[in-house]
């Protein structure tokens, strides 16, 4: 038992620190530990099972023994959706759509209602879904923003690794000059992915870092420049202004940039994600969302709300702490896991 644990531990450590020496190891896990690294879909399903318990389990309970769907049932369903972190506006919208179908007598029983709900959620996610294409411009600039502790730096590390692996020249900019050791954290990710990191001293002007990074990206003919910004609460006016300045500097140095402003959201966040998306979009023209920490028990419910209410595509999902634990968002797969 102890040895098994140690094996796993070592494997985990290898996954975390071994990347710089043997980057291959991070992609192909050693044969001895397939059981501790279940398939991606399994993990996603496992992570979503809690949501499922709440969403589908409760819908089932609600519909149990009901031959007819009436207005009261829909009202309760609205509450259930709300408690799955699917925001108010989107819940109301979903219920309205179901009401319409109900009026047309399209929903005869619980199964039909569940199917309709599933289709509706999927349609809403698919409407805006679009993977990020970084080949449209050189260098392609991504500014990564979000509130504190959502996983911006980790997401950037994974992005850097992914695009470096596919043969792109990637450069990272450590524009989080506020939080203690944020630049060091990014540097370690940079080492793992084998890409350069532009950084300044702690407390430096983030825009200055970005300026240098832009110059460096042009000089080194990089394909992709990813800018890590400090976590900021969307209600802090000064910090939002700082972020606008970063974007201005990028736009001045590299015309057309930033090509993507990626808002990182924590899957565990509740209704506040909507407020985050709203204010960040107003201040920084967010063009895509990355949803992190889906490997926990947290719900992905907010994605439906954020994507739907702000017409934003979900680009990536984070499903672990490993360097390869970042996936393209697939609405089909996501909704399938949600409803299984």
């Amino acid at each position, binding site marked *: 038992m102890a040895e098994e644990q140690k094996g796993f531990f070592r494997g985990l450590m290898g996954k975390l620190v071994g990347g710089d020496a043997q980057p291959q190891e991070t992609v192909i896990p050693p044969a001895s530990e397939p059981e501790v690294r279940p398939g991606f879909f399994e993990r996603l399903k496992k992570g979503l099972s809690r949501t499922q318990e709440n969403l589908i389990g409760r819908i089932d309970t609600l519909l149990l023994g009901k031959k007819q769907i009436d207005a009261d049932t829909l009202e309760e369903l609205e509450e259930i959706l709300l408690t799955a*972190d699917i925001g108010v506006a989107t819940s109301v919208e979903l219920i309205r759509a179901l009401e319409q179908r109900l009026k047309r007598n399209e929903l005869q029983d619980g199964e039909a209602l569940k199917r309709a709900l599933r289709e509706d959620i999927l349609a809403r996610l698919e409407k805006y879904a679009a993977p990020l294409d970084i080949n449209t411009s050189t260098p392609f600039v991504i500014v990564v923003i979000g*509130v504190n502790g959502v996983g911006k730096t980790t997401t950037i590390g994974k992005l850097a690794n992914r695009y470096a692996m596919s043969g792109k020249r990637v450069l990272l900019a450590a524009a989080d000059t506020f939080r203690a050791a*944020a630049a*060091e954290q990014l540097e370690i990710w940079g080492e793992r992915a084998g890409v350069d990191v532009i950084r300044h001293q702690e407390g430096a002007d983030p825009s200055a870092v970005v300026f240098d990074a832009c110059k460096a990206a042009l000089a080194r003919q990089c394909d992709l420049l990813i800018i890590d910004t400090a976590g900021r609460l969307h*209600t802090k006016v000064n910090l939002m202004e700082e972020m606008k300045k970063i974007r201005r500097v990028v736009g001045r140095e590299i015309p057309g940039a930033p090509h993507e402003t990626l808002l990182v959201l924590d899957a565990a966040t*509740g209704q506040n994600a909507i407020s985050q998306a709203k204010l960040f979009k107003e201040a920084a023209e967010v063009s895509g969302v990355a949803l992190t920490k889906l*490997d926990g028990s947290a719900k992905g419910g907010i994605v439906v709300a954020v994507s739907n209410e702000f017409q934003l595509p979900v680009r990536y999902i984070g499903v672990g702490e490993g360097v390869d634990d970042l996936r393209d968002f697939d609405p089909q797969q996501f909704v399938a896991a949600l409803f299984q």
Partner: protein
Amino acid sequence: MFENLSDKLDLVFKKLRGQGVMTEENVKEALREVRLVLLEADVNFKVVKDFVEKVRSRAVGTEVLQSLTPGQQVIKIVHDELVALMGGGEDNSLDLAAKPPVAIMMVGLQGAGKTTSCGKLARYLKGQRRRPLLVPADVYRPAAIEQLKTLGRQLSIEVVDARADQDPVDICRDALQYAERSGFDTVIFDTAGRHQIDDFLMDELVRIKGAVDPREILFVADAMTGQEAVNVASGFNERLDITGVVLTKLDGDAKGGAALSIKAVTGRPVKFAGIGEKLDALEVFHADRLVSRILGMGDVLTLVEKAQSVFDAKDAERLQQKLKKSQFDLEDFKAQLQQIKKMGSIDSILGMIPGVGKMMKQLQGAQPSEKELKRIEAIIDSMTRAERANHSIINGSRRLRIAKGSGTSVQEVNQLLKRFTEAQRVMKQLQKLGPKGLMKGMGGLGKGMFPFS
């Protein structure tokens, strides 16, 4: 902090207030509103259900129906029940009554704010004349150890040296022994963020707990957490038997319903609240005050406490005398600004004043920023002593000089002087009204209140 929730409850209760006589129907309708508001505030649905049931059983019945002001009665019931739910009146102070070194473990999800909270807590304990030692036990996240070390340097608090290839349990055990040898009386362990469903990492926490026998295990929770807060908190509680909660990121606009859920499910009190990024932004959590704030009653107590710790009693006395004689001059004005700045951001101060939460919304955009405060200070600094004492002598050429000296424009100097005159006039009016008229006067003031808006 909780403006949105109080706004909504206000709306609900406005409906109630309009009713002459309370019927069972009315209560029901009001409770549905309360329920939706709480759900929207991220309070867990099970908790909401129980809560609403409790309020209903108390509200429907003689208590309310025979009461003269039913609306008030319902507000009071909701308030009382919320306080009870948050554990109001319970002791939520940090329990350090053990043989030193006393161990405190910080646990939680990734990105909840554990490391920052460790730093804040260490600073708080240092202020309590304790000798804290910080222990980085997060070997997984890149540069997590470095982060805690940097915080330690900023605070002049020792951080145990650790490497990412060590076993966290060993780090903690060694650190405790080191603390004992070196005379530290409190040891704070910063553990790695983890999901409560990650058995391997949860086992590690259990082993650390076994190795250091902590007096306090604080669960660090993000105020923005949604419905999931319940599962996460109970997951941690089942494995580790946590002793308290630190609620972080309360300075955002999250409604913080997660705090209600966690308290209801684990029964553990919220002990501290993180209200900012800086290391002094940690407050002892007050359940009753928080609930008062939720219900839009303001948080006067915190404000008074804060003011007391910052304001010099003599200064205040002198200012009062001056106010009485209507001699409030620019020098006093500047002194006041500086004191306000010491108390924290203007937003957080205004948020604590009853009724201002709602006013703030209207004032949005017109809020004076810290930057503007600096400019005002610069302008006043560029005046001579005579000018500060008597602003009426400031003529055109003086204005030009002041503008040049402070790096501003004559228009800005003019604006400041105009606002200051207005403020002076308002002060005089307030004097006439006396303390009772103060609130009434404030309502009608609007912009004149802030010479710098």
